[in-house]
């Protein structure tokens, strides 16, 4: 979370945590703090939601200026799919995706815990993106083994590995995709970004499904395309989750049509991705 806050790149992030103390924000990032809100450099905030996440989100929706992104840190026993479903009911929010952070050293042990095992399994299978953290603390063999194990438990979610929780922001937040960013920071698993112009109309739903297919090997994708009906629309893909929404009016006329694809370099096959996209021509 500290890494994200440091690389928010002008976005206003709001981090919601169950209680302060569980998430130590680096001291140099903190501008001001009271019982429930920590103000962070660059217009970001961190809030504790205490006993009612829904109420905290409803309050956050009325914040002025509104945050660009809310990052919700669920408790260790939460079922993220259930929280995501609840977020979808709230006015002013669109769900971006579910990221499950796994500790490379301990995740398999925790999944075998008689009390917590089924919860951990659901946290993994609910994920749109799995982040395997602390990979510096395990051997190469162990790392490969835990990746295979995660892939089997996740329902098609891509895996991004990380050290010290440093995950490229474009993997975690749709607003970062395609944005001109500050100089890149070193990451355990650098992500590759591929931008493809979309001059012709496409079947937008089919394209979104094709990019969300686990076989496409993408972490995230975003598209601004002309649909089969000639109307501009926006595609958002994170792991296997996708949505297609009509583009807001001003953007519909000006912006160039394109898709931006983000993935782990070794798993991205540009030719295959282009074939997928071509297969969705309207």
């Amino acid at each position, binding site marked *: 979370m500290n890494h994200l806050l440091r690389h928010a790149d002008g976005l206003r992030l709001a981090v919601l945590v169950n209680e302060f*103390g569980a998430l130590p924000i680096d001291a140099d990032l903190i501008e001001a703090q009271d019982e429930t809100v920590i103000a962070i450099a660059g217009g970001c905030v961190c809030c504790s939601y205490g006993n009612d996440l829904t*109420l905290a989100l409803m309050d956050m929706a009325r914040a002025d200026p509104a945050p660009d992104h809310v990052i919700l840190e669920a*408790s260790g026993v939460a*079922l993220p799919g259930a929280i995501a479903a609840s977020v*979808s*009911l*709230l006015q002013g929010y669109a769900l971006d995706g579910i990221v499950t952070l796994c500790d490379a050293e301990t995740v398999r042990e925790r999944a075998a815990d008689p*009390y917590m095992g089924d*919860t951990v399994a659901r946290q993994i299978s609910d994920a749109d993106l799995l982040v395997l953290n602390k990979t510096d603390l395990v051997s190469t063999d162990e790392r490969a083994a835990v990746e295979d194990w995660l892939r089997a438990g996740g329902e098609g979610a891509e895996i991004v590995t990380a050290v010290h929780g440093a995950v490229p922001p474009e993997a975690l937040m749709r607003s970062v995709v395609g944005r001109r960013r500050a100089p890149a920071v070193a990451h355990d698993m650098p992500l590759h970004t591929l931008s493809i112009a979309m001059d012709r109309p496409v079947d937008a739903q089919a394209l979104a499904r094709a990019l969300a297919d686990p076989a496409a090997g993408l972490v995230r994708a975003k598209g601004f395309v002309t649909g089969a009906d000639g109307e501009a629309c926006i595609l958002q893909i994170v792991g296997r989750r996708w949505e297609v929404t009509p583009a807001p009016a001003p953007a519909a006329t000006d912006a160039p049509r394109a898709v931006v694809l983000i993935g782990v370099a070794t798993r991205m096959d540009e030719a295959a991705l282009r074939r997928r996209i071509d297969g969705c021509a309207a």
Partner: protein
Amino acid sequence: MTTIYAARKVITMNPARPVATHVAVRDGRIVGAGPLEELARWGAHTLDTRFADKVLMPGLVEGHAHTMEGVFWRYVYCGYFDRTDPDGRRWEGAKSVEAVLDRLREAEAALSDFEARPDGPKDGGAEGKAPLTGFQLDPIYFDNRKVSRADLDAVSTERPIGVVHASCHIMNVNSRALELAGLLRPGINHPGVPLGEDGLPTGELKGPDVMTPVSVHIGFDRDMLACDERGLRDFGKLCVRAGVTTVTDLAARLTDDVVAMMLDVTAENDFPARVVPLRFFQGLTPEALIENAVVLRKRSSDRLRLGMVKVVADGSIQGFSARMRFPGYFNGAPNGLWYIPPEQLRETYERALAADVHVHTHTNGDEATQLAIELLEGALRKHPSPDHRFTLQHCQLADAAQFRRMAALGIGVNLFANHHFYWGDEHYALTVGPERAERMNACRTALDNGLTMGIHSDAPITPLAPLFTAWCAVNRLTASGRTLGEHEKITVAEALEAITLGAARTLKLDGEIGSIEAGKRADFAVLEDDPTEIGAETLRDVRVWGTVQGGRIFDAAAL
């Protein structure tokens, strides 16, 4: 000045002299119980005969309730069973969906058009007609006939309407309420929001996450567990009507302003009960929670006992959110939810034992009970604490082995005896199946193993009425008349102890209350009938005249 009360009978719960004819009171405390001539030797006294035809027993202790019931009575009572409100009005049970709707219609007609309720939502309600709110609906008794949005629309389409179920975990709302929350739209995909054939929500909302976006528009406070001044006073009246002189508020947020309010209200001369709020764990790290409890403890007054902590391990059995061991739910539902990470529970226990903070833990399913037992056992090895009296609340499915282990570790239990009556048939048929339904709330096993044991109502989930709770534990009857678990019945004497000394022991207050003997608080339940004579089958029919609390007399009829 000593007052000696003459009574038809004084049931003392003191085995040395189990019954007496008189009880002497001075400065709110008991000087002694015994024959008049013996008590008269204490010196100058007034003989008060107002209770000469009444039966006195120790003031009843409700070990698991929520003061928010006092607030609920501002809403429309939609329950199936008859129930008495704080002002003494007996509300007949609504026996059909139609009866519920009629009652709502009647209340709707009495509401003025554009007057937002003072306790209503800050937004939404003010935009149009004030909301209409009901509580205690239980469609189980209507053959599970669902209440629909259309049903409530027939009451009003302009006014937001919401009716919360008895479980407090489900509500039904009308179209206007959905509209205000932005949920009257197609495309909703949520297991807690069933859709009708038209693709729109039916108006049934299952689970707090789903209820909250709507409940703020139908008159519920932002925090459903919260109580306010008037609610607390009303709750006090319910206590008098039930013979209760000490009551817990088992999931209190206890912010500074709430504590100040509770200290003020409970200190009022006519506030009739001792309230024991337990600080709710949510939203605080274990470290902050225990520090907070230590600070709160020092703010206690005679009638507001602060410093205990409540933790919730899992959900509810009828909501299929309790954590179950093999073989799980009878209908095949997946296992329930943890409400606290096990690591956090472990740390809470360890810090609490180190700081001598008393923790009660909600467990419903037997897996949650097992976790609590194991974690507390580990914490006790680190911080040996004789007489810690950590208590499991509900603990409904514990088996004999778990009770034995709890006894060995000094863990107390507060069993949900009322559950048998209200949901026993549901447990038998659907949630846990016949065998485990018979062992639920195993009072006999708990007592045979020597556990500290209370029994409770969880008001407002079920009515605050310890004598009814005692009847439930003695008879183990369900609403349909099935005896569920013959071998777990306890005697009337044991049940009366559970609602006095037993519950007091779970709160570490048994040195002060729970029996009528020299030195204790002058807290009495004043009864028209003798619970030890009326018969096990009719124990719930014992009439309550009122209470004496700290020597102050409260006549229920004069509230």
